[in-house]
């Protein structure tokens, strides 16, 4: 599995980052200005322009290794969007992408910390620890940060599940953003993120987010797609690197994700 490497800081990109989405709509317009439209979702394209400065020899070697392995724009690789939440349906835990433990109850429409009603109440009425998690097709060996807003009427704890790592964090009646970050010694091609509840626990959760970096950024809502792009490619067959000193490299590159290729 080819994947875009992280920098030694754990980040996938540096500022500025530019992302553009393109859709295709066929429009038939009448003389009077009325329009008949037809969507073509298969033609959607997402592209990123990334600029890297002050890269070390190791960081450059990882990038060059990927570029050579995929032979420029020939072969796809997995790209984790540095400006997005990797999890799909971040505000709809009832969707099929979320795997809930048996008998775990989910109730939507709960007041969230942003003033809306997009939070979920999750209850574990059983005598065993139950999980609510989502698996993404991304290498488990990268740096990740999982974050979620949580509260509970009683003082209790929530387990944050980040692959094989689980971390208990205490919560109370006030919304708190919990985070779990780090790198796993795991070579799997997929990783799961979510929460686990102790027996009898009832917790309100909102804004669950996973990012391929070492700390949480502001929460980003997602729908049917998260920020994992398994069909990304370099846009160009050339990679130009500028070196201004020992272990001081810079480059700019474009990545494109086209669904129909």
């Amino acid at each position, binding site marked *: 599995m080819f994947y875009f490497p992280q920098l030694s800081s754990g980040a996938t990109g540096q*500022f*500025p*980052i*530019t*992302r*553009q*989405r*393109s*859709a*295709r*709509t066929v*429009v038939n317009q009448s*003389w*009077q*200005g*009325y*329009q008949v*439209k*037809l*969507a073509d*979702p298969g033609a959607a394209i997402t592209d990123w322009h990334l600029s890297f400065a002050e890269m070390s020899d190791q960081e450059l070697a990882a990038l060059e290794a990927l570029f050579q392995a995929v032979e420029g724009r020939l072969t796809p690789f997995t790209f984790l969007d540095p*400006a*997005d*939440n990797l999890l799909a349906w971040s505000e709809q835990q009832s969707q099929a992408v979320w795997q809930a433990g048996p008998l775990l109850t989910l109730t939507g429409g709960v007041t969230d910390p942003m003033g809306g009603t997009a939070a979920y109440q999750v209850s574990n009425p059983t005598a065993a620890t139950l999980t609510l998690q989502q698996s993404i097709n991304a290498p488990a060996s990268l740096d990740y940060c999982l974050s979620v807003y949580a509260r509970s009427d009683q003082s209790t704890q929530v387990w944050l599940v980040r692959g094989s790592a689980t971390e208990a964090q205490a919560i109370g009646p006030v919304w708190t953003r919990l985070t779990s970050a780090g790198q796993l010694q795991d070579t799997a091609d997929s990783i799961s993120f979510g929460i686990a509840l102790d027996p009898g626990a009832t917790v309100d959760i909102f804004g669950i987010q996973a990012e391929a970096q070492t700390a949480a*950024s*502001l*929460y*980003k*809502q*997602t*729908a049917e*797609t998260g920020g994992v792009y398994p069909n990304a490619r370099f846009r160009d067959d050339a990679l130009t690197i500028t070196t201004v000193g020992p272990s001081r490299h810079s480059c700019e590159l474009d990545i494109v994700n086209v669904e129909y290729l």
Partner: protein
Amino acid sequence: MFPTLKTGAVMQYPAKRTLQFNTDAIRFLDGTEQRFRDNPSVLHRWTIQLDLLDESELAALDEFFVSNQGRFGSFSFTDPWDGTTYPNCSLGADTFGFQLRGEMRGKTTLIVCENRT
């Protein structure tokens, strides 16, 4: 509904609004003209330039673009100048891009067009 910023605003300055008529003019040999309207009424178009957005605000706009599939979808849009709600509007382009120059320093532009109903 078109997403609002965290301040509750839809647009930032400089804000641009266009009123579009469609008039046909036929000029005769003697110099006189006959004009008639091709469209029954005016159409509105708003150019929304946004700067210093945070990642959540950009994500909401991105999600809105994806859910509308670019120009395909329609939604209601409230004109921030006069509060009039136009029930049938679409995005004006099949592309949506943004630039993040740093944390909470996102920049983007969107165009909203009123559709003929």
